[in-house]
């Protein structure tokens, strides 16, 4: 019997497939197409303390084997999420990850506090909607925003430390490939008591409209995701996983079961699937059967046998 399960800080994942933040809404849309409770987990659309209307102008552009997005963290705010979406999450049989973004350290802290508080209230009623907070210190699409924290380790340390201090919910830090020193960033997260790191977020990139003579994005740069970045993401995950002892969630360009296995072999405990959801609306369930098939063919019983084998 193949066993795909894993855990982060005691949170059970029935398999390593987690849908990536910003690409899966809060799960409802894809739930119309397949039973999302087959998934290991989902990371919800990035939330901020206050609602955000996101960036103006064009928000997406296709590139060779990739896409640029400039959504700019459009979201209804944490309160709205807790009041209107968390109820749906309560009923889901999978690991539920809230992705928490912000412009300033205070926003992150207040946001984490709100979620913490809500969890206590639900707990008292025997309910649960959030298993993990994923701290997004890496969104490249918000001006003067989250990204600043994603680049310098010591700047990020403040946020991680403060958020860690105010919440008992398992905490994963989502790292940016634009970080100056990704390994030191991950080591810092471990030092500050994070329960894991997830990487990579999108890579800062650019597209110019040569006829209009301007960037296609109002925000100048946008975030690159998709198969194009997979080789880079895999290298980064391998580098980080070789250096920290907390679980690593591998993200970036996954579009096949063997891609998932590559990340696991590079040392990832779990993986996240982002852009591929747009390519294949049944991505989650199809990858799941693909992994199972691979393990059957290769005579592998548990992912631990191959995790970090490289």
């Amino acid at each position, binding site marked *: 019997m193949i066993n795909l399960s894993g855990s982060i800080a005691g949170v059970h994942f029935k398999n390593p497939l987690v849908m990536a933040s910003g690409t899966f*809404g809060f799960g409802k849309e894809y739930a119309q197409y397949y039973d999302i409770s087959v998934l290991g987990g989902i990371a919800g659309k990035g939330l901020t303390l206050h609602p955000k209307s*996101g960036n103006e102008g064009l928000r*997406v552009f296709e590139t060779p*084997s*990739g896409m640029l*997005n400039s959504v700019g963290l459009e979201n209804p705010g944490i309160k709205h999420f807790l009041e209107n979406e968390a109820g749906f999450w309560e009923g889901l049989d999978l690991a539920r990850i809230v992705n928490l973004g912000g412009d300033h350290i205070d926003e992150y802290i207040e946001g984490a506090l709100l979620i913490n508080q809500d969890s206590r209230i639900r707990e008292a009623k025997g309910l649960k909607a959030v298993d993990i907070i994923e701290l997004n210190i890496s969104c490249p699409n918000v001006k003067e925003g989250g990204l600043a924290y994603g680049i310098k380790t010591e700047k990020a340390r403040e946020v991680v430390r403060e958020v860690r201090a105010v919440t008992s919910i398992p905490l994963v830090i989502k790292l940016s490939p634009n970080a100056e020193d990704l390994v030191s960033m991950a080591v810092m997260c471990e030092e500050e008591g994070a329960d894991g790191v997830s990487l990579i977020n999108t890579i800062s990139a650019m597209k110019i409209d040569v006829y209009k003579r301007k960037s296609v994005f109002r925000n100048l740069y946008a975030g690159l995701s998709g198969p194009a970045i997979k080789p880079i993401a895999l290298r980064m995950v391998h580098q980080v996983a070789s250096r920290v002892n907390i679980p690593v969630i591998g993200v970036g360009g996954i*579009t096949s079961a063997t891609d998932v296995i590559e990340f696991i072999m590079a040392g990832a405990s779990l993986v996240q699937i982002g852009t591929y959801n*747009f390519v294949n609306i049944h991505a989650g369930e199809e990858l799941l059967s693909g992994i199972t098939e691979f393990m059957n063919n290769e005579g592998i019983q548990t992912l631990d046998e191959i995790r970090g084998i490289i």
Partner: protein
Amino acid sequence: MAEIMSNIQVSPGVFRIKISGKYEGRIGQFYMLRGSRIDPLLSRPLSIFDLKDHYIEFLYQVVGEGTHLFASLKRGDSLNLVGPLGNGFPDIEGRTALVGGGIGIAPLYFAAKQLRDTDIYLGFREEACLVTDFNSISSNVRIKVGGSILDEVVFEDYDHILVCGPTGMLKAAKQKQVEQDYHGNVYVSVENKMACGIGACLVCSVKGPEGTKRACVEGPVFLAKEVDLDD
């Protein structure tokens, strides 16, 4: 994967593709289409052109890589499609003008077949297409090649006006409503770029006086006054 029954060029660079299977859909809704390869990455949204028991049809213009690939497909080849998507056109009563510019005529054929009491206005830049098809389903088809078809539409004659076409045309319709203080409903079908097509990624957002809406779920058909149109 669904099988292609035919894929015929109906005018320079414009193809009509018929795909086998049982499909659903309302006026103004669309499907996301793609080949079996992962590149180009994103699926392409196309409006329902026609729908029968055992097939669905789309009308598309070759503009870039994705539609170019569609054009290379032959009878017997296959395609992936997801849909129907979007809110579509609301159930309406009353007199309706269906106004299409260029490839914007695509959703109007399906609309004209289902709505009663409609006049059809089709504008083309250089060459009209599918005139016979439109004439076969309605006796009130007005065609204009070159110039603005919108100028031909007397808004006051209608309770509803549905406009599909380039953004410039949608803008013009919106402006005409304001200028003429027209109290009927002007609907526009927007063509924002999309990724997920089902409301999960927020790349297709349309801004409006009442905040942000997703073109793929709350649209693509909006009341003109509900949305800010820019390119």
